[in-house]
């Protein structure tokens, strides 16, 4: 029932309907129209801006649960990386392989190997060889007889589930693939270095050759063809394991299931997908 069907005195609705004035005839209605347009535009724009936020959230969930990713052998692929620090001998082969495979400029690193030396006096010496073959050919300072224990820790991008780097990229140049690999679109990166600041692990840098943000891609150009990352392939001791963590039969899944696993800086809540065996409290 429209308002005009009502009995009794005509209400405001009918008054306006019976007015002979057309649409936008008066300054009043023009003002109303413009005001409505502004309101609707603002509301529409705000809604449209909000939608991508939800899509982003949905994407993150997909990666976490492995939904809608690449289907292999009846399950979706989600890549993971495991570093067994008890096996690393500090030969630096991984650093060399990475540099050659990915054309990483001198003095910049997508991966590196840290050496931890614990002395009897309680001090811990940490260093990294960034030159030559990257191998630790020299002994650490002080008398080796004073040493309690020593080990090597390879570092690389953690390809976190909740990535601070993707969050802060102002243009969306940092993104995550369906397989959970965190990548940079070099054609879109504006080189603001905000992601370099946001990464808690020091794995991002502004590439001096490309002048864009750069980082470990887990050799995405190799893994999408079923190969392993160059650092994994070249490691002589099997320190580095890479594979599909959604496949219970994969080498990495078995290793993750049967070992005590840790991640770097877990207190920051980034949920790294690069995981470790044999970390100590001093490794950050």
């Amino acid at each position, binding site marked *: 029932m429209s308002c005009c069907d009502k009995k009794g005195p005509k209400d405001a609705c009918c008054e306006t309907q019976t007015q002979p004035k057309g649409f936008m005839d008066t300054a009043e209605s023009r003002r109303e129209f413009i005001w409505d347009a502004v309101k609707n535009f603002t509301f529409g724009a705000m809604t449209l801006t909000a939608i991508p936020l939800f899509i982003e959230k949905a994407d993150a969930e997909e990666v976490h649960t492995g939904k809608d990713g690449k289907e292999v052998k009846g399950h979706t692929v989600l890549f993971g990386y495991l570093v067994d620090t008890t096996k690393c001998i500090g030969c630096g082969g991984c650093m060399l392989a990475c540099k050659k495979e990915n054309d990483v400029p001198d003095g910049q690193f997508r991966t590196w190997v840290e050496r931890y030396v614990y002395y009897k006096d309680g001090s811990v010496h940490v260093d990294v060889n960034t030159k030559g073959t990257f191998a630790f050919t020299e002994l650490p300072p002080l008398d080796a007889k004073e040493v309690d224990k020593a080990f090597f820790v390879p570092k690389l991008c953690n390809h976190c589930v909740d990535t601070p780097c993707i969050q*802060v990229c102002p243009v969306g140049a940092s993104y995550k693939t369906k397989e959970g690999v965190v990548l940079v679109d070099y054609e879109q990166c*504006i080189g603001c270095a905000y992601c370099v600041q946001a990464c*808690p692990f*020091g794995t991002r840098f502004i590439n001096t050759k490309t002048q864009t943000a750069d980082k470990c891609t887990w050799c995405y150009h190799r893994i999408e063809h079923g190969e392993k990352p160059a650092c994994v392939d070249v490691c002589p001791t099997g320190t580095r394991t890479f594979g599909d963590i959604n496949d219970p039969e994969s080498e990495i899944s078995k290793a993750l299931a049967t070992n005590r696993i840790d991640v770097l800086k877990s207190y920051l809540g980034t949920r790294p997908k690069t995981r470790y065996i044999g970390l100590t409290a001093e490794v950050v």
Partner: protein
Amino acid sequence: MMPHAGEFIFPNDMNGVAWTVMIVLYPYITGLVAGAFVVAALYHVFGRKELAPVARFALAMSFSFCAFATLPLLLHLHQPQRAFFIMFMPNFTSAMAGFGFIYSFYLTLLAVEILLVFRSDIVEMAQGKGVRSLLYKVLSLGVLRETAKSKQIDAKWIHALSIVGIPGACILHGYVGFIFGGIKANPWWSTALMPVIFLSSAIVSGIAMLIVLYVLFSKLRGVRVDDECLRSMMKTLWLFLILAVTLESLELLNMAYEEGAEWHMLSRLVTEKLRFSFLYVQLIIGSSIPFVLLLIGWMKKTSPRIRVTLGTISGLLVLVQVLAMRFNVVIGGQMLSKSFRGFVDYIPEWQGREGILVAMGVFTLPFILLAAVSQILPVWKIDAHDH
């Protein structure tokens, strides 16, 4: 025995800091924009009539600095040709993505408010012929008639824009602080106080710059500095200086008292790496001395001549303090390697795109524009109408 680790920085930190002196300059410039606007708003919105002599100039100053606020960022970007991506394809989960929109909004607001404040003068000077009147015809946007009603509408809009501009200035600068405060990877930055600290120091720097420029321009023009106006600015500066320094100190005190996981490095950052710029310049020379000078300066008994001297000296010191604060946040935060075991050295370069010489060049541009604006528009005229 508890293990304690020696010096070690992540290898990618060995190349120095990613954000250089340009990123120190950027919040410094936007801070001056926000601060100067607040003074104009104190007059237009809060009825601080004694600020009338600088109300117009404050707007012109705010605009002149705002016009160049993006230049340091452009010089810093490694792919400057893609700068506008930030507006065409913003990723709104990034604190930085709002920059283009917030900045454009604020610059537009300032430009419109200036055109309205100076409308009567522009219309007057647009009459007649010649190149000079042509300039004013352009500035008048083609409307060369002014009526009592149009003046009334303009006044309303100036009032409205000033009101909108206050939260606008807070967002513009609070947002800059959030860019740093929202980085959990960096314990020197990651605090919810950061936006408030940036905002309060912005207001401090803006008022200080206004005092210095007001005194300087008065000398150049050979006119007397309005004592009530200067006294009011000094009093406001004193208040905001207390607020800013309290917040800055509270942040440090909180870190020191909690003695969190990274405090052993943060304490070294403050006492070793930033000893000069933080302890000496930011806290002692830039805060304590102006605090005393301003206190003496705004007291009624102080003679106007001495007030001018005290105002100028404390203004300059406060400007140095805020610059040091920007440096200590931006560069200081990056000096701490994410390994939390060692410090990244910062050696500023003189030449080059992000060098000190270019930074100095960039910082002179707002002053040149401001000098030009003060030639074109009557920035020292005192508005007759009341709001």
